[in-house]
């Protein structure tokens, strides 16, 4: 049916640190907590591994929202990684907003390995926010569109 209008389902990229949030996502899975399948998890060794280019590249390749999850401040496996990530992401998000790019498309959330429920709730909430915003138009690369 070529003219069928499909409901918009956002593509979400979630960078999750290996030690807390990825395990949190795992727990959400084993507890059978539902969150949308459009959330693609990318495992990183630490939240501070994510450099601003990763976030932009995710948008370029078609993400409608990008979320970074890491250990709670104070609980970083490498002691301080998430503190650096926190400053970087704050400044990056503020810059995106300064350029007029919807600030709600990016988010940082601290999720521990025990917080499977928080992980699922966070993802559900983020997906709802991005769904309301619609497709990512301001940081898209037309060459990467299907």
């Amino acid at each position, binding site marked *: 049916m070529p003219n069928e209008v499909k409901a918009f389902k956002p593509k979400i990229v979630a960078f999750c640190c290996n030690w807390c949030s990825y395990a949190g996502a795992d727990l959400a899975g084993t507890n059978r907590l539902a969150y949308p399948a459009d959330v693609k998890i990318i495992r990183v060794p630490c939240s501070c591994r994510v450099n*601003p280019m990763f976030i*932009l590249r995710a948008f*370029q390749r078609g993400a409608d929202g990008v979320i970074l999850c890491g250990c709670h401040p*104070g609980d970083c496996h490498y002691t301080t990684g998430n*503190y650096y990530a*926190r*400053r970087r992401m*704050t400044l990056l998000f503020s810059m995106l907003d300064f350029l*007029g790019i919807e600030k709600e498309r990016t988010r940082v959330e601290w999720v521990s390995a025990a917080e499977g429920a928080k992980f699922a709730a966070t993802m559900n909430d983020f997906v709802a926010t991005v769904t309301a915003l619609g497709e990512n138009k301001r940081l898209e690369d*037309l060459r990467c569109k299907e």
Partner: protein
Amino acid sequence: MQGMMLNRAKELLSDGTVNRVLGWQAGEFVYDITPAVFETEEELDAGFVYNGFCGNNLSKYLVKETLKDGKILVFLKPCDTYSFNQLLTEHRIDREKICAIGIPCDGKTSGEMLKAKGISGITGISEDADNFVVDTIYGQTTVAKADALEERCKTCKSKKHVAYDELLGEDGEILDSHRFDMVAKLEAMTPDERFAFWREQLSKCIRCNACRNVCPACTCEQCVFDNPKSGIAQKAAADSFEENMFHIIRAFHVAGRCTDCGECSRVCPQNIPLHLLNRKFIKDINELYGDYQAGAEVGTRAPLTNYTQEDVEPSIVYHREGK
């Protein structure tokens, strides 16, 4: 001032304190100033200039120059001294091999600025406190500095030198320059207005890389933008995403280390107000993590390589004032 500088440079050359002088030299036209290294008194006499066109920040050239043998003399305007300190902080230049002379600056103009005022056939320039006196083939014209200053000089942050071995002339004060006014104005717009503003500006970029090449904070041996695997190396942006990405990443890489020397905006052939991106980061850093001026002192820790446990959460961006 040019005379005093020339004399001092010759003295230091002849008594062997330094073996080279880093200064400015006129190009094909008097307003085409380029940085130059002079090795003899004759070369100095033939080429050395210091006038209202000498905007170039010489500090970055020291990265390569201090790898060579012998000591080099460099002239630094007040804003250049901040870059100089920042380069020292980052261990990019060798202080032992430099003799730095601070020189006063009352603001710079450019051939482009004067031509926009309808002045052509420029053959020379001199200045008093408030005016540039421009010699042209049609005679002499006077332009008020307030009308002809480079953008960055209108919002000059400091007339005080923060680093030097010697000072020629009087040292000035740190100024209250209202340099964040335009950033605040943009912040007060709606996201749609901001987006339109930046699309118009950034779509002009031809990716000549001049802003990166001139920047004293951009001293990486291998720049991300030269990575052949990145898909964006050495080419003009193919679409709006690449334009946005280049500018976000360039500004981000210098965030916390950018001294707001204004070189990037000065050299941009497309007149993109790059300083607004840098200043947005500086303003955010000041507001969120406490006032910080890169290059004010040697050895301070840049805000992005630092943290406190009480730092604000990134979600502050959603709740801040503005629209």
